[in-house]
């Protein structure tokens, strides 16, 4: 018997039901298979050209992300370091317009790199009235809207697992967590456990 390699399985596919059971205290939805590209470039002109090709300006400030609509649809650019960015685009991009090639062309002869890292991380969307309480169980970063406004993007440890945490909407309490695929099930198990005290019917 050969392994089925024709259909892809997301890292949290087996956890969908259990994570859905955390609602309404915490809404956890996996957004699998997003297109992710790690971009390394330090030359300001090259970074501007990359932003122009993408239709979204690259974040100028540390620990922030930008979002916009361009030729590749809804795209986010996350700041990972002074010369390192993560481009996150939707999963169903038309393969005939490769975003990787477009970025590489925009980079031109400038020093840098564009690498497809889509399989490295999976994306988990978090929301709900207790999202900050649950995150505070395992993350020391201050996520109050005054300290982490909309557009904040921090790389930190969540329950000792390395994650990228995006503040999508500070007022409404909407977060996105990018976690390595191999850590995704651990994080899902931790979220389920950390959320127990906020579930309905638990006194």
């Amino acid at each position, binding site marked *: 018997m050969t392994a089925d390699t024709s259909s892809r399985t997301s890292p949290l596919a087996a956890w969908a039901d259990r994570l859905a059971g955390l609602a309404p205290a915490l809404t956890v939805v996996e957004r699998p298979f997003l297109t992710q590209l790690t971009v390394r470039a330090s030359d300001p002109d090259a970074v501007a050209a990359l932003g122009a090709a993408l239709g979204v300006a690259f974040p100028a400030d*540390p*620990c922030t992300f930008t979002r916009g609509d361009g030729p590749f649809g809804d795209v986010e650019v996350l700041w990972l*370091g002074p010369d390192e960015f993560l481009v996150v685009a939707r999963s169903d991009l038309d393969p005939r317009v490769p975003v990787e090639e477009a970025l590489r062309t925009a980079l031109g002869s400038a020093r840098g790199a564009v690498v497809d890292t889509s399989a490295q991380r999976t994306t988990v969307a978090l929301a709900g009235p207790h999202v900050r309480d649950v995150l505070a169980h395992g993350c*020391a970063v201050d996520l109050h809207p005054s300290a982490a406004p909309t557009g904040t993007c*921090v*790389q*930190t*440890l969540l329950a000792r697992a390395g994650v990228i945490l995006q503040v999508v909407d500070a007022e409404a309490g909407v977060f996105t967590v990018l976690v390595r695929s191999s850590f995704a099930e651990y994080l899902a198990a931790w979220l389920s456990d950390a959320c127990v005290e906020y579930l309905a019917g638990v006194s």
Partner: protein
Amino acid sequence: MQLIPCPWCGPREETEFHYGGQAHVAYPQDPAALTDEAWARYVFFRDNPSGPFAERWSHSAGCRRWFNAVRDTRTYDLLAVYDAGEPMPDLGERDEVVS
């Protein structure tokens, strides 16, 4: 928990960082010309002051960038943070290093 001010990410928990030992230990100009003793001194011998100490740190769970920090080994106060490659800043009127 101790907070370490990353030059890029701001103050973060100590557990996000990785210690890199003493800063400003220059690689020998001509390593092949060193005697075994001089090489051992370069590889293994480090200062151990009681007081301000320039160290390398890496924000390994965050932006993964190396930087230098001056830490008072008596109080664990981080007195200054500066980029790797820069000289150690003048800390002014502080206690002299007691060895």
